[in-house]
């Protein structure tokens, strides 16, 4: 009877080990779940849905207002055009208006140029130390736009938002706003202008050094390509210029 007892011990140890693995995995799973819960604070869970609804509603309203504004601008333009077809002086003034509207970004443009694509690096880990360098920021877009101006661009648009003198590019949290419109990557920056001049500006090693380094090291998405027949829409935002007078 006493001789049969020892073989039971290894069997018990084996059974315990079999239980240990699922127990450890279960613990890992619970811990991760708990981390998710703590990261998304109670405030976020409670207040985010109505705030997101409000933001989306305002963005939809903005789109509607922009459409209405574009219609009114076209209507006023038509009245001015009809009114100025009689004398030479009027025709001259209308030509000047057309010229100014073009350079102010209030008329759509089409032509050859370059398209710059900017995107976050793929599969960026939130725990990565370099996360800040792996994603695109509003300042990156501003740098790209300024480089395009430097390369001789005549018209620029970011994801179909025309860039003009009063354009704004900034971020709130991880959301980027261009001309007050919510945007997120990937960004397509269309620049109409002399292709060689534009490509020369973007290829210049002295330009966009930070973005190029992050592309090579962190895998940030940044590509410049020649493009033909690019369409850049007219600026559709408000142009209320305050504290400025025409000369």
């Amino acid at each position, binding site marked *: 009877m006493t001789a049969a007892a020892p073989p039971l011990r290894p069997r018990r140890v084996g059974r315990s080990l079999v239980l240990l*693995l*699922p127990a450890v*995995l279960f613990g890992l*799973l619970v811990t991760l779940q708990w981390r*998710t819960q703590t990261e998304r604070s109670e*405030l*976020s869970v409670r*207040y*985010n849905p109505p*705030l*997101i609804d409000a*933001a989306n509603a*305002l963005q939809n309203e*903005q789109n509607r*207002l922009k459409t209405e*504004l574009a219609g*009114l601008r076209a209507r006023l333009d038509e*009245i*001015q055009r*009809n*009114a*100025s077809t*009689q*004398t030479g*002086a*009027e025709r001259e003034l209308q030509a000047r*208006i057309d010229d*100014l509207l073009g*350079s*102010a970004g*209030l008329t759509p443009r089409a032509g050859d140029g370059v398209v710059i694509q900017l995107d*976050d690096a793929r599969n*960026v*880990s*939130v*725990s990565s130390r370099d*996360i800040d360098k792996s994603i695109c920021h509003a300042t990156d877009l501003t740098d790209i736009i*300024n480089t395009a*101006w430097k390369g001789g661009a005549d018209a620029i648009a970011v994801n179909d938002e025309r860039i*003009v*003198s009063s*354009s*704004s590019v*900034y971020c*709130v*949290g*991880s*959301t980027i706003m261009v001309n*007050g419109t*919510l945007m*997120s990557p990937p960004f397509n920056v269309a620049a109409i202008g002399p292709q060689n001049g534009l490509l020369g500006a973007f290829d210049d090693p002295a330009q966009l050094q930070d973005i190029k380094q992050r592309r090579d090291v962190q895998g940030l998405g940044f590509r410049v390509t020649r493009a033909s027949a690019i369409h850049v829409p007219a600026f559709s*935002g*408000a*142009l*209320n*210029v305050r504290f*400025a*007078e*025409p*000369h």
Partner: protein
Amino acid sequence: MRTNTGAIAMAVVALFLGVAAAAQFRSQDVYSRSLQLETPSSLTTLIANLSDRNNELRNEIFDLRRDIESATNSVSSGQGTLSEADQGSASASTVDSTSARSPTS
């Protein structure tokens, strides 16, 4: 026999937990952009900015409606051909005077 069945059951449970844990870990780890992930503070700022922008658009729409009415009246009364064009030129040059390849804010 009972021991083998138990071990197989345990292995299946462990496999399931492993897959679930890996899926959880992956979903945690990859950075993503979404309004859902913004803080209430950021969302409030976004809403304030959108609201300001919409107010500017409404103001411009109001001004344009007034301009259109004024232009229509002056053209129909036969006075405003040159003055309308002149006004259009002035307003376009106001915008253009600040536009020349300026950096964005």
